[in-house]
């Protein structure tokens, strides 16, 4: 577990007072709560986030606590939410915008691609958009169509926005707080599968995890497995089971998809020379290929085998009767680890 970075910049109640054992969705609520408390400029906007507390209850109780002015049920309009957020952010607020599912962010695509990400550039920093867009993503929870998209690559290709995808309650809270204090826009992806899939000790109060830094979740010398979000658990499971066959894996949770932590990737690949990249997005154009590019640049001479990718296919995420086949499984990852190991 990472150390608490006791950032005490703004207020005094920075010290972790204790720990609590909570799920990822609770950790997210907690981060929002901490920041609403610390910083008056923070406002939450979204569909059903107020009275209803969000369709996943990520904002449960917050409207009651902070009022309808700060935790706002908006009309059903993603371009409206993000566009209004741009105005709020430019004019001094710190909007956190919930997009109900990542698959419904597309109506706001123009706002993100042409304004959220370009305002600083266009005004040389005179006007900026410190905004967090939160969006549940991913397959595996038997959700209806479109709800299961994992389309982070649209945003990593968009200059001017950071993309974060935590895999644990601890990281989720620390990274969300960092995102909310970041001077630039952040897309914060939350795995629906992980929302309630396990608890972890999380410090109370304020702490930050550094954006742009990956994390080793398992140490090994033979094969590097690189992934993020919901796939961390699956990859770890696969890597653990490879120990039976005497294959030791380095498992890296990159946590931030843009900017990527090139060092953690390069260091590991220089050690192992064998790589498996795992993600649930479509293979073509996926962030896996950015990782490939990092490796090509930083560790080409160390590679002992072609890099393997275990990813979603180049097909729309299927309806739930077949989604388990779409999603990378531990078994598929094992096959890939074995393949690069025995190349």
């Amino acid at each position, binding site marked *: 577990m990472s150390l608490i970075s006791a950032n005490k910049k703004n207020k005094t109640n920075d010290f972790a007072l204790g720990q609590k054992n909570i799920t990822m969705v609770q950790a997210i609520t907690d981060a929002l709560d901490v920041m609403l408390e610390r910083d008056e400029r923070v406002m939450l906007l979204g569909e*059903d986030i107020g009275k209803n507390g969000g369709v996943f209850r990520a904002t449960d109780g917050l409207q009651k606590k902070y009022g309808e002015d700060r935790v706002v049920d908006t009309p*059903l309009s993603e371009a409206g939410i993000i566009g209004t957020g741009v105005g709020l952010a430019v004019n001094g607020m710190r909007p956190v915008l919930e997009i109900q599912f990542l698959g419904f962010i597309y109506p706001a695509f123009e706002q993100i691609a042409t304004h959220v990400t370009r305002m600083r550039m266009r005004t040389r920093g005179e006007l900026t958009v410190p905004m967090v867009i939160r969006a549940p993503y991913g397959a595996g929870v038997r959700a209806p169509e479109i*709800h299961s998209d994992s389309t982070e690559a649209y945003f990593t290709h968009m200059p001017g926005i950071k993309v974060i995808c935590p895999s644990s309650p601890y990281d989720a809270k620390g990274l969300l707080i960092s995102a909310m204090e970041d001077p630039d826009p952040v897309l914060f992806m939350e795995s629906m599968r992980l929302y309630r899939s396990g608890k972890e000790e999380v410090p109370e109060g304020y702490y930050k995890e550094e954006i742009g830094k990956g994390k080793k979740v398992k140490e090994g010398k033979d094969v590097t497995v690189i992934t993020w979000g919901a796939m961390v658990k699956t990859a770890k499971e696969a890597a653990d089971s490879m120990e039976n066959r005497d294959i030791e894996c380095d498992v890296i949770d990159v946590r931030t998809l843009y900017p990527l932590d090139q060092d953690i990737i390069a260091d590991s690949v220089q050690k192992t020379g064998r790589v498996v990249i795992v993600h649930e997005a479509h*293979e073509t154009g996926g962030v896996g290929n950015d990782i490939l590019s990092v490796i090509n640049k930083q560790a080409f001479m160390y590679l002992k085998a072609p890099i393997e990718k275990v990813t979603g296919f*180049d*097909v729309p995420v299927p309806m739930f009767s*077949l989604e388990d086949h779409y999603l990378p499984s531990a078994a598929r990852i094992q*096959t890939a680890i074995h393949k690069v190991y025995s190349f």
Partner: protein
Amino acid sequence: MNFPLVRCIKEDGNMVDPSLKEKISEELVKKFYFHMKRIRAFDRSAKNLQRQGRLGTYAMYEGQEAAQVGSALALDTMDWMLPTYRDHGALLTHGAEMMRVLLYWNGRMEGSFHPGKRIFPPAVPIATQLPHAVGTAWAEVRKGTNNACLVYFGDGATSEGDFHEGLNFASVLKSPVVFFNQNNGYAISVPVYKQMNSESIVQKSVAYGIPGIRVDGNDIVAVYFETQKALERAKKGEGPTLIEAVTQRFGAHTTADDPSKYRDQEEVERQREHVDPIRRLERFMHKHGFENETWIKETEKAIETEIQEAIMEMENFPKAEIEDIFDHVFEIMPRSIVEQKNEYMEWIRGEKV
């Protein structure tokens, strides 16, 4: 703005204008009644199936039967229907196979279309189907047919850009579309008054210079005749109409939703007495000599049988084939998908051994 609520049958079952009675044949009343009963029974069964883990998340429409059946019955077979995820009542009325509707809610791709029927797959991203309706209807004009399009959407959908762009396109192109809004009071948890500042949805028709009709969505007679008129206008080349059917969603948004978080469900149940569209029709039938106990009993039984058969069909439907993931993205599979498919299918076969 003057958009009075059009109503034919009052809550107590009496007629607003008794002279309309001539136009209401027994056959028509039976159709109304049969379809409303049928889709309500379906809805309740589906909800139960979900509870038993035999369906995935399911979106109920109980309370909206008059709006869905009344509008759907106004369509000809060759007219197109573009539904949302909550309009399978209308779908069933327009000829969709019940078994397929069940498949859809069971996460089966085979359930999102209805071979031979002019029905679009349900639009999941809100309001995106409105522009589709414009194009679909326009294609009919280009082909020189006399067919129109009916597109469903909710009160929440009016906030999306696609609602606006769709209505604007249709009005400019004089596309034969009926924009049928079911104002059921809520978009998930958000009440209409937070969704918009306007007093009605129908007044948004003014923005496009098209006719707007506000109809009591729990009065199937009014819904049916108003939709029919709008379709006639469309077919005569007079362009689109916006209909707002004021109705109510009795239950949760979907089986994944807990309405007690944002509204008083007991209050909803109390209101049901006044607003339930089926009870209203029953009162009308009772007061106007259309009551027929035997027929009702038979009908109920037939419906029950149909639903049970559909459930059986759904549950006996061949298992989803993995290849389906890959096979329908393009007409001719590009190499990247071919390779992904082959690799995966080989791996699966290996695994299974």
